[in-house]
Protein backbone atom coordinates (compact mmCIF):
# COMPACT_ATOMS: atom_id res chain seq x y z
CA UNK A 1 0.00 0.00 0.00
CA UNK A 2 1.32 3.38 -0.93
CA UNK A 3 0.03 6.13 1.35
CA UNK A 4 1.34 9.67 1.06
CA UNK A 5 1.11 11.87 4.13
CA UNK A 6 0.99 15.65 3.62
CA UNK A 7 0.45 17.30 7.00
CA UNK A 8 -2.73 15.72 8.33
CA UNK A 9 -3.88 14.73 4.84
CA UNK A 10 -3.50 11.13 3.72
CA UNK A 11 -3.42 10.34 0.01
CA UNK A 12 -4.01 6.97 -1.66
CA UNK A 13 -3.58 6.94 -5.42
CA UNK A 14 -4.48 4.33 -8.04
CA UNK A 15 -6.98 2.61 -5.77
CA UNK A 16 -9.84 0.79 -7.47
CA UNK A 17 -13.22 1.88 -6.12
CA UNK A 18 -15.82 -0.78 -5.36
CA UNK A 19 -19.57 -0.43 -5.79
CA UNK A 20 -19.67 0.34 -2.07
CA UNK A 21 -17.12 3.16 -2.45
CA UNK A 22 -19.00 4.59 -5.44
CA UNK A 23 -22.26 4.54 -3.47
CA UNK A 24 -20.58 6.42 -0.62
CA UNK A 25 -19.15 8.96 -3.09
CA UNK A 26 -22.57 9.61 -4.60
CA UNK A 27 -24.08 10.21 -1.16
CA UNK A 28 -21.22 12.43 -0.02
CA UNK A 29 -21.49 14.54 -3.18
CA UNK A 30 -25.02 15.47 -2.12
CA UNK A 31 -24.50 15.56 1.64
CA UNK A 32 -21.57 17.98 1.55
CA UNK A 33 -23.76 20.68 0.00
CA UNK A 34 -25.67 20.78 3.29
CA UNK A 35 -23.40 19.67 6.09
CA UNK A 36 -19.86 18.58 6.93
CA UNK A 37 -19.45 14.99 8.08
CA UNK A 38 -17.01 12.45 9.42
CA UNK A 39 -16.86 8.75 8.51
CA UNK A 40 -16.30 6.49 11.51
CA UNK A 41 -16.17 2.80 12.35
CA UNK A 42 -15.86 -0.16 9.99
CA UNK A 43 -15.83 1.66 6.67
CA UNK A 44 -12.61 3.43 7.72
CA UNK A 45 -10.90 0.02 7.85
CA UNK A 46 -12.38 -0.84 4.45
CA UNK A 47 -11.06 2.42 2.93
CA UNK A 48 -7.61 1.27 4.02
CA UNK A 49 -8.01 -2.11 2.38
CA UNK A 50 -9.54 -4.41 4.99
CA UNK A 51 -10.85 -7.44 3.17
CA UNK A 52 -14.44 -7.33 4.19
CA UNK A 53 -17.65 -5.66 3.14
CA UNK A 54 -20.28 -3.93 5.21
CA UNK A 55 -23.97 -3.32 4.87
CA UNK A 56 -23.79 0.10 6.41
CA UNK A 57 -21.43 3.03 6.58
CA UNK A 58 -21.47 5.17 9.73
CA UNK A 59 -21.45 8.93 9.35
CA UNK A 60 -21.58 11.61 12.01
CA UNK A 61 -22.82 15.10 11.24
CA UNK A 62 -22.97 18.07 13.60
CA UNK A 63 -26.37 18.95 15.03
CA UNK A 64 -28.23 21.16 12.56
CA UNK A 65 -31.61 22.86 12.70
CA UNK A 66 -34.66 21.09 11.34
CA UNK A 67 -35.03 23.37 8.31
CA UNK A 68 -31.50 22.50 7.12
CA UNK A 69 -32.18 18.81 7.64
CA UNK A 70 -35.44 19.03 5.67
CA UNK A 71 -33.60 20.61 2.72
CA UNK A 72 -31.10 17.74 2.80
CA UNK A 73 -33.91 15.21 3.15
CA UNK A 74 -35.87 16.61 0.22
CA UNK A 75 -32.79 16.69 -2.02
CA UNK A 76 -32.02 13.02 -1.35
CA UNK A 77 -35.63 12.03 -2.06
CA UNK A 78 -35.62 14.10 -5.25
CA UNK A 79 -32.47 12.32 -6.43
CA UNK A 80 -33.84 8.81 -5.95
CA UNK A 81 -32.77 7.92 -2.42
CA UNK A 82 -34.92 6.78 0.46
CA UNK A 83 -34.68 6.74 4.22
CA UNK A 84 -35.30 3.24 5.54
CA UNK A 85 -36.96 4.49 8.71
CA UNK A 86 -40.69 4.80 8.11
CA UNK A 87 -40.96 8.42 9.26
CA UNK A 88 -41.29 11.58 7.19
CA UNK A 89 -38.72 14.40 7.32
CA UNK A 90 -39.95 15.76 10.66
CA UNK A 91 -39.96 12.29 12.18
CA UNK A 92 -36.47 11.56 10.88
CA UNK A 93 -35.21 14.78 12.43
CA UNK A 94 -36.80 13.75 15.73
CA UNK A 95 -34.92 10.42 15.56
CA UNK A 96 -31.64 12.24 14.99
CA UNK A 97 -32.36 14.72 17.76
CA UNK A 98 -33.05 11.84 20.15
CA UNK A 99 -29.53 10.52 19.56
CA UNK A 100 -30.44 7.63 17.29
CA UNK A 101 -29.43 7.05 13.69
CA UNK A 102 -31.35 7.19 10.43
CA UNK A 103 -30.53 5.03 7.42
CA UNK A 104 -30.24 6.25 3.86
CA UNK A 105 -30.04 4.09 0.74
CA UNK A 106 -30.73 4.20 -2.94
CA UNK A 107 -34.41 3.59 -3.57
CA UNK A 108 -35.44 -0.06 -3.41
CA UNK A 109 -31.93 -1.17 -2.45
CA UNK A 110 -31.51 -1.10 1.31
CA UNK A 111 -28.02 -2.60 1.12
CA UNK A 112 -25.68 -0.82 1.27
CA UNK A 113 -26.97 2.02 3.40
CA UNK A 114 -25.55 4.90 5.34
CA UNK A 115 -26.38 5.38 9.00
CA UNK A 116 -26.33 9.07 9.87
CA UNK A 117 -26.18 10.31 13.45
CA UNK A 118 -25.71 13.68 15.06
CA UNK A 119 -22.52 14.09 17.06
CA UNK A 120 -23.90 13.51 20.54
CA UNK A 121 -21.09 13.00 23.01
CA UNK A 122 -17.45 13.82 23.66
CA UNK A 123 -16.02 11.04 21.56
CA UNK A 124 -18.21 12.00 18.57
CA UNK A 125 -17.25 15.65 19.00
CA UNK A 126 -13.57 14.74 19.10
CA UNK A 127 -13.84 12.62 15.94
CA UNK A 128 -15.62 15.42 14.12
CA UNK A 129 -13.37 18.24 15.27
CA UNK A 130 -10.22 16.27 14.47
CA UNK A 131 -11.42 14.58 11.28
CA UNK A 132 -8.76 14.09 8.65
CA UNK A 133 -9.00 14.23 4.87
CA UNK A 134 -8.26 10.95 3.12
CA UNK A 135 -7.87 11.64 -0.59
CA UNK A 136 -8.44 8.64 -2.81
CA UNK A 137 -7.99 9.24 -6.55
CA UNK A 138 -8.74 12.97 -6.06
CA UNK A 139 -11.90 12.31 -4.02
CA UNK A 140 -11.92 13.43 -0.40
CA UNK A 141 -13.28 11.26 2.38
CA UNK A 142 -13.29 12.91 5.82
CA UNK A 143 -12.51 10.20 8.34
CA UNK A 144 -12.19 10.10 12.10
CA UNK A 145 -8.66 10.43 13.50
CA UNK A 146 -7.06 6.99 13.33
CA UNK A 147 -5.78 6.95 16.93
CA UNK A 148 -9.33 7.53 18.15
CA UNK A 149 -10.76 5.00 15.68
CA UNK A 150 -8.40 2.29 16.90
CA UNK A 151 -8.96 2.93 20.61
CA UNK A 152 -12.72 3.31 20.20
CA UNK A 153 -13.00 0.06 18.26
CA UNK A 154 -11.03 -1.73 20.98
CA UNK A 155 -13.38 -0.19 23.56
CA UNK A 156 -16.49 -1.36 21.66
CA UNK A 157 -15.07 -4.81 22.16
CA UNK A 158 -16.82 -7.15 19.72
CA UNK A 159 -14.65 -9.54 17.71
CA UNK A 160 -15.19 -7.60 14.49
CA UNK A 161 -14.37 -4.27 16.18
CA UNK A 162 -11.14 -5.62 17.66
CA UNK A 163 -10.11 -7.05 14.29
CA UNK A 164 -10.81 -3.70 12.58
CA UNK A 165 -8.76 -1.91 15.27
CA UNK A 166 -5.81 -4.23 14.80
CA UNK A 167 -6.02 -3.91 11.03
CA UNK A 168 -6.06 -0.08 11.08
CA UNK A 169 -3.19 -0.04 13.55
CA UNK A 170 -1.10 -2.41 11.44
CA UNK A 171 -1.75 -0.43 8.26
CA UNK A 172 -1.16 3.00 9.80
CA UNK A 173 1.78 2.21 12.09
CA UNK A 174 4.07 4.57 10.13
CA UNK A 175 1.90 7.64 10.49
CA UNK A 176 -0.19 7.44 13.66
CA UNK A 177 0.69 9.23 16.89
CA UNK A 178 1.59 6.31 19.18
CA UNK A 179 1.58 8.52 22.30
CA UNK A 180 -1.93 9.77 21.53
CA UNK A 181 -3.07 6.21 20.84
CA UNK A 182 -1.69 5.11 24.22
CA UNK A 183 -3.49 8.01 25.91
CA UNK A 184 -6.79 7.03 24.34
CA UNK A 185 -6.35 3.37 25.20
CA UNK A 186 -5.40 4.20 28.78
CA UNK A 187 -8.37 6.54 29.22
CA UNK A 188 -10.77 4.05 27.61
CA UNK A 189 -9.43 1.23 29.78
CA UNK A 190 -8.49 -1.00 26.86
CA UNK A 191 -5.38 -3.01 26.15
CA UNK A 192 -3.02 -1.13 23.83
CA UNK A 193 -1.76 -4.41 22.43
CA UNK A 194 -4.79 -6.71 22.41
CA UNK A 195 -3.01 -9.43 20.44
Amino acid at each position, binding site marked *: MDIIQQGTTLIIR*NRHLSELDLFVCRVLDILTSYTPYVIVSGYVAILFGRTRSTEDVDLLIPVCDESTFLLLHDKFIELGYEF*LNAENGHGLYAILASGSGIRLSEKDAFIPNIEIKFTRNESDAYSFKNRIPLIINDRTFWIGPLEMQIAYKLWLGSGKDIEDAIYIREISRNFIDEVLLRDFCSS*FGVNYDPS
Partner: protein
Amino acid sequence: MIPPDPELRLQNGRERIWFVKKSADWVRSVPNEVWSARQCTLINALLANRENMPITKEQYLKMIESAQRNSDRRTGSPVMPSQTKIAP
Protein backbone atom coordinates in the same frame (compact mmCIF):
# COMPACT_ATOMS: atom_id res chain seq x y z
CA MET B 1 -27.83 -26.31 23.04
CA ILE B 2 -24.26 -27.03 24.04
CA PRO B 3 -22.40 -23.75 24.70
CA PRO B 4 -19.24 -23.21 22.66
CA ASP B 5 -16.04 -24.40 24.26
CA PRO B 6 -14.35 -21.28 25.74
CA GLU B 7 -10.90 -22.56 24.83
CA LEU B 8 -12.01 -23.17 21.24
CA ARG B 9 -13.44 -19.65 21.06
CA LEU B 10 -10.18 -18.18 22.35
CA GLN B 11 -8.20 -20.16 19.84
CA ASN B 12 -10.54 -19.09 17.05
CA GLY B 13 -10.17 -15.44 18.12
CA ARG B 14 -6.37 -15.75 18.10
CA GLU B 15 -6.43 -17.29 14.63
CA ARG B 16 -8.66 -14.52 13.31
CA ILE B 17 -6.29 -11.86 14.68
CA TRP B 18 -3.34 -13.69 13.13
CA PHE B 19 -5.16 -13.64 9.81
CA VAL B 20 -5.97 -9.91 10.12
CA LYS B 21 -2.28 -9.17 10.72
CA LYS B 22 -1.20 -11.34 7.78
CA SER B 23 -3.79 -9.60 5.62
CA ALA B 24 -2.49 -6.16 6.70
CA ASP B 25 1.09 -7.29 5.96
CA TRP B 26 0.05 -8.30 2.47
CA VAL B 27 -1.86 -5.07 1.79
CA ARG B 28 1.18 -3.08 2.96
CA SER B 29 3.47 -5.05 0.66
CA VAL B 30 1.70 -4.61 -2.68
CA PRO B 31 0.79 -1.57 -4.81
CA ASN B 32 -2.63 0.06 -4.35
CA GLU B 33 -3.83 -1.29 -7.69
CA VAL B 34 -3.33 -4.85 -6.49
CA TRP B 35 -4.97 -4.94 -3.06
CA SER B 36 -7.82 -2.67 -4.14
CA ALA B 37 -8.61 -4.80 -7.20
CA ARG B 38 -9.01 -7.86 -4.96
CA GLN B 39 -11.04 -5.92 -2.43
CA CYS B 40 -13.33 -4.69 -5.23
CA THR B 41 -13.84 -8.21 -6.51
CA LEU B 42 -14.95 -9.36 -3.06
CA ILE B 43 -17.19 -6.39 -2.25
CA ASN B 44 -18.77 -6.21 -5.70
CA ALA B 45 -19.54 -9.92 -5.63
CA LEU B 46 -21.25 -9.58 -2.25
CA LEU B 47 -23.25 -6.56 -3.39
CA ALA B 48 -24.21 -8.23 -6.65
CA ASN B 49 -26.10 -10.79 -4.60
CA ARG B 50 -28.04 -8.26 -2.52
CA GLU B 51 -31.19 -8.52 -4.65
CA ASN B 52 -31.48 -12.16 -3.64
CA MET B 53 -31.72 -11.25 0.03
CA PRO B 54 -35.05 -12.73 1.04
CA ILE B 55 -36.13 -9.99 3.44
CA THR B 56 -37.90 -6.66 3.22
CA LYS B 57 -36.40 -3.40 4.42
CA GLU B 58 -38.73 -3.51 7.44
CA GLN B 59 -37.44 -6.98 8.34
CA TYR B 60 -33.89 -5.74 7.78
CA LEU B 61 -34.38 -2.85 10.21
CA LYS B 62 -35.85 -5.21 12.82
CA MET B 63 -32.93 -7.58 12.32
CA ILE B 64 -30.46 -4.71 12.86
CA GLU B 65 -32.27 -3.58 16.02
CA SER B 66 -32.29 -7.10 17.37
CA ALA B 67 -28.61 -7.61 16.54
CA GLN B 68 -27.74 -4.35 18.32
CA ARG B 69 -29.73 -5.38 21.41
CA ASN B 70 -28.04 -8.77 21.59
CA SER B 71 -24.57 -7.54 20.66
CA ASP B 72 -21.65 -7.85 23.05
CA ARG B 73 -20.54 -4.37 21.99
CA ARG B 74 -20.28 -1.65 24.59
CA THR B 75 -22.66 1.27 24.20
CA GLY B 76 -22.39 4.91 25.22
CA SER B 77 -19.17 6.84 25.20
CA PRO B 78 -15.76 6.02 26.71
CA VAL B 79 -14.01 8.40 29.10
CA MET B 80 -11.96 10.77 26.97
CA PRO B 81 -8.39 11.69 27.95
CA SER B 82 -8.45 15.03 29.78
CA GLN B 83 -6.28 16.83 27.19
CA THR B 84 -8.70 15.98 24.37
CA LYS B 85 -11.93 17.08 26.02
CA ILE B 86 -14.26 18.99 23.73
CA ALA B 87 -17.82 20.11 24.40
CA PRO B 88 -20.22 17.84 22.46
